[in-house]
């Protein structure tokens, strides 16, 4: 495949055209609109597969990338904005994940949304969303990412408010939009800081990733400060705030649970699999910046606190989707934790595995919710206390959800174990090596892993096991039949919750090796852009648009797997040792979590209500989500922002309106009157009336002179001649 901007653009543009056609041409939303959407995303999927094949099976070297730009607009020599594509192995994997998940979720949506009155509208936004996400992934600069980032924010807003008849849905959509906006503002500030620094270092402003890496390698960020803090720290923190907002990290995690007001497939696509992963993806992209800003420990703590806090809240949720929402936040926390402890590769792997199993979990939840219909309220049932025993009614959904739950809980052989275990292993390694503050994230991570196993199996047991709690509801539920748009997407996703797809061995460790081939393609292809590896960007020429591919065409050496990851033998041995400890620990932890859930909810040996009574203070805090919503709404918004708004309103109406606006009005009135006078008196009388007067005067003179009397003319001639003679 020949990579140019034009040849990669269809990935983004196909869904975008689907959106445009559906929104503006096929106005009556019919099956045609849905077909267009699905086909467009299938097209993107094929493109992504082609790129994936090229990069992953072609086994390009880890440092291979394609960077092509075009000039978006040019405002002179010092301000030229390029947009373009940046494709490396990370992008290739991400593209396949996004388009694959989106395609399967689109298929599922045709089942889930079929009887919705706004069937077509849903697909309009889904197409736009997918387009924006793919655009973000291939984008070569932060500003391009920011643009797509905001489009996704808008789509998220629209889809959360899909059932806008419900007041909560409207409120949730506004909440999601405003909360992420806090992060977005900082992200934009970070872009400005980076632009400024790049312009200072290279003479031409840019926020392209390669230029940022280049400036980092050149040391362009050194010795720059902002209010006494290093500029690179400020920039990295500001951009990371974008991640905090978008990926629902502490302390901006409040929007994601409410986002579950949207239709379940949109939750699957946006609030679990892809959009929230965009924040983590951004952090992966700017990892060198985070590293240069010495923010890694901070990032690790944010991730660990999020992972732990969300996991604890998930313990007490009774809504099926709420449990999944908190588990999403918790898993995103793991990814950020992974970035923080330097497990770059593992964090990205967890992003991919999580996207797959979380999409599947949400679709399964959708499948459950959609088939549970309350005949009294005519609503779908999401409450777990009314479910139970559903595995007999929906065996296929049960199979899918069970596999995903095993994956997310970190049971060996499943994908979640492979990736999460590597993150925890690296966290443990950093804690053992550097000690001190880094023990916090590691411990929180392991505790959260235990909680994850517990609450996920609690959810499974409450939903699918035991006796039906609501017999009437249970009886009304139809037995599931295999249908192509309900079960096939689930089963396809389920297939990819198996660990060997990602790791090349069953467990991700060397304990049980995959018998035939051992291609740890994730570790082979994706390399942490450490500071020492940025040197290759140092002498990079600014990429300019040209239709001719002027890049050096010599094929790069294929990347090969180094089991020691470039470390010395002794060091590698130590790393493997720690990872084995971590793996064994997390297996024990996962199984004990599952066991505890089993004892509580299936065997009935432990009574949950006893624990609730015993820890009632904690229980209350958890049910209120650690009072974050209260704090934000009552504290920050009502006490702070509302007061500030009132003050500003008082200033606006009392002072600004009265004095500035009314004063301006008076001044204007005076000015009008004055200019009216001036017009009447000066212009009209003197100017307009004066012209004729002058003309009239000349007229009199000339008329007098031209009397027609010959003798008068004669006198004039004489006078002139005489005066001429005397003047000589």
């Amino acid at each position, binding site marked *: 495949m020949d990579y140019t901007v034009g040849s990669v653009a269809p990935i983004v543009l196909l869904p975008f055209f689907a959106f445009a056609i559906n929104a503006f041409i096929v106005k009556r939303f019919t099956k045609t609109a849905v077909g267009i959407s699905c086909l467009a995303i299938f097209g993107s999927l094929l493109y992504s597969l082609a790129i994936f094949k090229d990069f992953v099976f072609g086994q390009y070297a880890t440092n291979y990338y394609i960077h092509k730009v075009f000039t978006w607009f040019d405002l002179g020599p010092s301000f030229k904005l390029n947009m373009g594509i940046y494709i490396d192995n990370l992008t290739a994997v991400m593209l396949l994940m996004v388009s694959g998940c989106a395609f399967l979720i689109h298929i599922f949506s045709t089942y889930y949304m079929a009887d919705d009155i706004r069937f077509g509208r849903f697909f309009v936004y889904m197409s736009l969303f997918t387009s924006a996400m793919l655009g973000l992934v291939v984008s070569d600069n932060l500003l391009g990412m920011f643009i797509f980032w905001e489009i996704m924010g808008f789509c998220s807003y629209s889809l959360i408010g899909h059932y806008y008849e419900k007041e909560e849905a409207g409120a949730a959509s506004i909440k999601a939009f405003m909360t992420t906006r806090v992060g977005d503002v900082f992200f934009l500030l970070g872009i400005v800081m980076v632009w400024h620094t790049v312009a200072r270092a290279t003479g031409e402003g840019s926020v392209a990733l390669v230029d940022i890496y280049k400036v980092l390698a050149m040391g362009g960020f050194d010795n720059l400060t902002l209010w006494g803090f290093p500029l690179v720290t400020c920039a990295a923190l500001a951009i990371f705030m974008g991640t905090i907002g978008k990926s629902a990290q502490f302390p901006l995690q409040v929007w994601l649970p409410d986002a579950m007001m949207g239709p379940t497939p949109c939750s699957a696509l946006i609030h679990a699999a892809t959009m929230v992963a965009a924040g983590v993806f951004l952090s992966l992209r700017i990892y060198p910046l985070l590293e240069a800003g010495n923010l890694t420990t901070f990032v690790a703590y944010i991730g660990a606190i999020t992972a732990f806090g969300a996991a604890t809240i998930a313990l007490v949720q009774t809504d099926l989707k709420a449990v999944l929402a908190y588990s999403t936040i918790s898993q995103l926390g793991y990814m950020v934790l992974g970035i923080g402890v330097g497990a770059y590769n593992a964090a990205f792997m967890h992003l991919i595995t999580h996207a797959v199993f979380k999409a599947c979990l949400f679709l399964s939840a959708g499948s459950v919710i959609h088939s549970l219909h309350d005949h009294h309220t005519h609503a779908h049932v999401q409450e777990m206390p009314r479910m139970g025993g559903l595995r007999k009614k929906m065996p296929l959904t049960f199979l899918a959800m069970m596999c995903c739950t095993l994956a997310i809980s970190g049971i060996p052989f499943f994908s979640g174990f492979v990736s999460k275990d590597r993150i925890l292993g690296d966290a443990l390694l950093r804690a053992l090596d550097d000690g001190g503050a880094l023990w916090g994230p590691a411990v929180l991570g392991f505790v959260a892993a235990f909680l994850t196993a517990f609450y996920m199996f609690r959810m499974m047991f409450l939903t699918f096991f035991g006796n039906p709690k609501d017999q009437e509801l249970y009886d009304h539920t139809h037995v599931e039949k295999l249908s192509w748009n309900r079960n096939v997407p689930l089963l396809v996703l389920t297939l990819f919750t198996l660990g060997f797809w990602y790791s090349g061995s069953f467990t991700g460790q060397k304990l049980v090796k995959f018998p035939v081939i051992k291609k740890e393609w994730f570790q082979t292809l994706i390399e942490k852009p450490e500071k020492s590896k940025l040197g290759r960007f140092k002498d990079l020429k600014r990429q300019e648009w040209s239709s001719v591919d002027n890049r050096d065409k010599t094929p790069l050496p294929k990347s090969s797997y180094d089991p020691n990851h470039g470390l010395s033998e002794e060091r590698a041995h130590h790393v493997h040792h720690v990872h084995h400890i971590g793996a064994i620990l997390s297996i024990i932890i996962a199984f004990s979590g599952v066991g505890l859930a089993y004892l509580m909810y299936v065997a009935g040996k432990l009574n949950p209500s006893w624990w609730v009574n015993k820890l009632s203070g904690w229980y209350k805090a958890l049910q209120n989500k650690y009072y974050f919503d209260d704090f934000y709404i009552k504290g920050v918004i009502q006490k702070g922002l509302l007061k500030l708004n009132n003050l500003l309103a008082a200033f606006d109406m009392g002072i600004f309106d009265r004095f500035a606006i009314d004063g301006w009005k008076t001044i204007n009135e005076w000015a009008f009157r004055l200019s009216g006078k001036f017009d009447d008196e000066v212009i009209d009388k003197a100017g307009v009336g004066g012209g004729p007067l002058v003309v009239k005067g000349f007229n009199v003179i000339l008329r007098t002179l*031209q*009397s*027609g*009397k*010959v*003798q008068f*003319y*004669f*006198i004039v001639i*004489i006078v002139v001649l005489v005066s001429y003679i005397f003047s000589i």
Partner: protein
Amino acid sequence: MITLSSYLVISTILFLAGIVVMIARKNIVAILLGIELILNASALNFVAYTKFVNQNLDGHIFPLFIIIVAAAEAAVGLAIVIRFYQIRESIHIDDATQLQS
């Protein structure tokens, strides 16, 4: 003793007389007579100068030309006056105001 200035005084008197006639008289024929006076004044000047300054015949030729031109001019002028009289039945100069517009 007749000197150049005597001639010049005479010619000046003639010239001024002609101008006064031209300005003051309202009869067109009188005005033509005034013109003749002015021409004669200039002719006298030529003759006087050539007698006292040049002492050749150049100055004598010019009065001859002036006399001829004056004769022609008088003929044309009188013809105009007759034509004017036929139209206006008057030879009063203030009736000839058609140059006004």
